[in-house]
């Protein structure tokens, strides 16, 4: 089988004009800093859609990506830590769609799981419900939220084996696992790579079959 071990530059070549990219992480936790940097420095794709919980903080590469003028749409749940996203939203330079955090996670999971969307009570009676279908099920009302998919996902893990099986420790799992299921091409930034067979099957957080490229950092 073809090796999945690539340089950051090689891996991010997959991103093309108009692509939707998912970026894992919750603030700095589990954020694929080096992949986003490589995208900024070695790839000029524009008109991007970025799907990310919070679009990071000003210390992270995703802040620079948002600021680069190459992003036309952002799907997120919290942008208070990245004032640049707020500015783009206010000025209309980018379309920014905000979703409740659990809804965002579930929309991505739904996309990756071949489901038709999410039926959630969250957002009812708020501006989140605007333009969305509502369904009454067993006497309760739910909002229908569409599934989300992407062309490329940038995710972060602690350890990978050469088959792409990933271990993501602690609170860094956040959006990285669902995003690995919901993109056509999944790139994992990892701190450590071990031979196949060295990760205990019970401890795998993302099965290698979901991972297309492994990029080692540090």
């Amino acid at each position: 089988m073809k090796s999945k071990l690539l340089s950051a530059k090689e891996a991010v070549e997959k991103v093309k004009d108009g692509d939707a990219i998912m970026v894992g992480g919750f603030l700095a936790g589990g954020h694929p800093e080096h992949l986003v940097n490589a995208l900024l420095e070695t790839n000029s794709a524009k008109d991007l859609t970025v799907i990310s919980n919070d679009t990071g903080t000003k210390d992270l590469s995703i802040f620079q990506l948002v600021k680069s003028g190459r992003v036309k749409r952002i799907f997120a749940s919290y942008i208070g830590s990245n004032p640049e996203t707020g500015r783009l939203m206010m000025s209309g330079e980018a379309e920014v769609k905000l979703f409740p955090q659990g809804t965002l996670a579930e929309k991505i999971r739904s996309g990756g799981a071949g489901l038709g969307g999410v039926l959630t009570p969250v957002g009812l009676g708020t501006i989140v419900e605007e333009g969305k279908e509502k369904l009454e099920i067993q006497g309760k009302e739910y909002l229908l939220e569409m599934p989300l998919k992407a062309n490329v996902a940038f995710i972060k893990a602690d350890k990978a084996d050469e088959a792409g099986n990933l271990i993501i420790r602690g609170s860094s799992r956040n959006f990285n696992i669902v995003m690995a299921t919901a993109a056509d091409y999944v790139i994992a930034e990892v701190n450590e790579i071990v031979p196949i067979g060295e990760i205990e099957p019970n401890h795998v957080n993302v099965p290698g079959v979901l991972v297309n490229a492994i990029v080692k950092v540090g």
Partner: protein
Amino acid sequence: MDKRELIAKRIAKELKDGDVVNLGIGMPTMVANYIPEDVHVMLEAENGIMGVGPNASQEEESLNCIDAGGNYVTTVKGASYFDSAFSFSLIRGGHVDVTVLGALEVDEEGNVANWMIPGKKVPGMGGAMDLVVGAKKVILAMEHVSKNGAPKILRRCRLPLTATKVAKTIVTDMAVIDVVPNKGLVLKEIAPGFTLEDVQNQTEAHLIVSPNLKVMEV
């Protein structure tokens, strides 16, 4: 006593042994400092930790263990980690007993506004909408009036809502108020140094005085 300390201390008394509790950023986080020794709760961070402990010392700091405010934290014995989809399954599914959040406004129906000020501040709702809809008990930690002295406990919220009919208990520096469905706001406790008149004067909403009205003790 500092207003915020008073509020946090009073809320700590609401927690029961065995509760699963999510504390919002800011004043709600302070609640953790005042939980009685014989009350054992599990603090949950919506980014993927069950069993958050005290903040990490500098040597312990790890990006794999941050809370929802991005702070480096430790975990308690019996902690566990999970991803965002599972975390919000716990939250939305009613597996969190208590959530404590700040609020910009609350009203007689228990509607809550705490995530945006149109034209001014649009940080995104993060996990707040999921938390107030999903948690079994929603406690609002808020100063009784705004910095300009304007009431925040209103007949009807004017800011965009976080959710409808979700607040259960409102704890301020002046009072403890319960939201009773189909009835309204029941004033249960008044902080030392204030009269019933003081509280009502600072409250736009109509307050129903509990027959057991007490002085707030912390």
